[in-house]
């Protein structure tokens, strides 16, 4: 077996750490890259080699194709793992790796390009037989033509800026009578936001779930799916909690969705790990699903799939990139138990989700059965303003959904993070919300339950216990803090057992 000798990880934070660990297990040397803001980051400390690639702004470091390729050349890395984000879905970068004789651990550049275009990806999915959300950009953009398109697509519809993205300027129209007013308004908003008033008319899927399928394909034409992940707990652009299996997916539905996902990957000529995202309307055997997009990279939430399927997706990515065949056939893959991932962000939900930067004065990850923490930070580290504020991913697995949910709660209870505000309190409220506990979730959950969740985040005065601990920590007199006493744990530490 000849895998790679040395892999450069073109990323930072928890995903760089994750890939470095996979390299270690496979006996491959790991090369980290870092910006000046990350000189003392965990991924740099863990790697066999580390190369500075620029100043803190991502555009001049982690997003600089030239800097990353130069680092790979000077380190003698024969392959490059892009992680997620940054250059991972940049087909120019994948092409540059190939041009400089380094294996890009991901799909071919042309596949990234095709699937990166929403229009091309949708067309490819439709031809491959995957359902897509009905919609069209009317060639003639008069009010009359758009109204006709809305009738063809079927109400309720969404009027979207054709040039837009990220949910900006979208207008929901539930009945025909609202059209006369909504069309000119949507056009104005599209014009204001994107300088182009062209509208796309799409069927509005009410309260959908976000259910995605993990795909893995090798260079020999074998493609498998590694089941679904439900990622309905999200704010715009950002998933917060993911789980697998989805509470809405039955075996028959899983079979249909998995087959559609594999068909799309096959039509795209896909190689390596990827994810097909669907919107799911309803639940159970009769639910309808619609192709949304394909992510041509490893996902943030890949660990829940690993926990439930008992596989290592990063190791599989590396093996497939080295030309090995897939280690398993579809029938050999099974789901066992349930896994939930919580994304611990350095952000303050009580202050409009304001991202937080600062020192991790105290940071102790919980260690307990069934809990996996993927993180890129250690105590004493610093969360920088320059990058994504993801601190850690807490993955709880257990034999049932409810057991995994309780385990996640218990783990949060023993996860002190001091020095920087986090979303941990919000995560706890979501886990305890009756709708979440019942699996009754959709992509509108966080907006719909926002008030209920946030009311509980408002803190009352500190408890007497908290004040007493603060007094003891600051050495203030006049409180009932005891003097340090011999403690069995500290004294035992000095005893040889």
């Amino acid at each position, binding site marked *: 077996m000849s895998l790679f000798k040395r892999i450069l990880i073109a990323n930072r934070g928890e995903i760089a750490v994750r890939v470095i660990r996979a390299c270690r297990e496979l006996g491959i040397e790991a090369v980290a890259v870092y910006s000046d803001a990350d000189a003392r980051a965990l991924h740099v400390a863990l790697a066999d080699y580390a190369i500075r690639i620029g100043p803190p702004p991502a555009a001049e470091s982690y997003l600089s194709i030239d800097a990353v390729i130069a680092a790979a050349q000077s380190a003698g890395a024969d392959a490059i793992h892009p992680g997620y984000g940054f250059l991972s879905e940049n087909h120019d970068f994948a092409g540059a790796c190939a041009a400089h004789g380094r294996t890009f651990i991901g799909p071919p550049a042309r596949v990234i390009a095709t699937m990166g275009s929403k229009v091309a990806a949708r067309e490819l999915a439709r031809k491959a037989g995957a359902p897509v959300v009905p919609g069209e950009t009317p060639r003639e953009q008069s009010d009359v033509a758009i109204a006709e398109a809305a009738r063809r697509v079927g109400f309720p519809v969404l009027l979207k800026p054709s040039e837009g993205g990220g949910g900006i300027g979208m207008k929901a129209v539930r009945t025909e009578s609202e059209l006369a007013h909504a069309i000119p308004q949507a056009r104005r908003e599209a014009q204001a936001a994107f300088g182009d008033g062209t509208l796309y008319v799409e069927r509005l899927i009410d309260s959908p779930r976000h259910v995605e399928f993990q795909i893995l394909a090798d260079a020999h034409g074998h493609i498998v799916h590694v089941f679904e992940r439900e990622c309905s707990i999200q704010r715009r652009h950002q998933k917060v909690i993911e789980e697998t299996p989805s509470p809405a997916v039955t075996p028959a539905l899983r079979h249909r969705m998995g087959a559609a996902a594999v068909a799309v990957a096959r039509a795209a000529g896909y190689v390596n790990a990827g994810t097909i995202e669907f919107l799911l309307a309803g639940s159970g055997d009769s639910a309808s699903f619609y192709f949304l997009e394909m992510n041509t990279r490893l996902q943030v939430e890949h660990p829940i799939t690993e926990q439930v399927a008992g596989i290592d997706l990063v190791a599989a990515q590396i093996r497939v990139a080295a030309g090995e065949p897939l280690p398993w056939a579809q029938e050999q893959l099974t789901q066992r138990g349930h896994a939930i991932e919580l994304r611990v962000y350095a952000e303050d939900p009580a202050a*409009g989700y*304001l991202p937080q930067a600062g020192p991790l004065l*105290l940071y102790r990850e919980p260690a307990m059965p069934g809990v996996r923490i993927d993180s890129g930070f250690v105590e004493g580290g610093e969360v920088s303003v320059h*990058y994504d504020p993801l601190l850690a991913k807490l993955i709880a697995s257990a034999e049932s959904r409810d057991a995994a949910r309780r385990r996640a709660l218990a783990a949060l209870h023993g996860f002190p993070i001091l020095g920087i505000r986090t979303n941990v309190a919000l995560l706890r409220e979501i886990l305890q919300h009756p709708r979440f506990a019942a699996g009754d979730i959709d992509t509108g959950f966080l907006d719909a339950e926002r008030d209920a969740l946030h009311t509980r985040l408002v803190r009352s005065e500190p408890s007497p216990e908290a004040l007493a601990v603060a007094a003891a920590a600051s050495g203030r007199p006049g409180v009932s803090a005891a003097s340090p006493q011999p*403690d069995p744990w500290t004294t035992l530490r000095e005893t040889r057992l």
Partner: protein
Amino acid sequence: MTVTPLGNGRYEVVTDTARTLAYAARQHDQTWVFIHGQVVVIGPAGGAVSRRRPHDDAALAAPMPATVTSINVSPGQAVKAGDVLVTLEAMKMEMAVTAPRDGVVDAVNCRPGELVQPGVALVTLVPPGRASEGGPQNER
């Protein structure tokens, strides 16, 4: 109640009814405490530290360079403290700029899609019941 330092930021808290493990760390004049699964930040006076001064006009500016994703108000509109005025995106995160107090929107100083810098009020507010072109309101 007895609080016993166990070293390395750990504290044992024993009350008449319960025993619990807590963690604490200090920075400047603030003490961060983790107890019963909750984080509390305690100032030098012993009270909880509020996150943001409630009447601060700095609250109307972007906290860091950010892109405006939506504007939820228009001039002349009355808003209540806590209403979302503008949403921003930075660090791949969405942030809401909320009204620090009740008031009426006097002007909106940004456009959707615009990259805004900290220190500039994205929305200006005048007190409720006061027309923007009017002079200073007399104290009554």
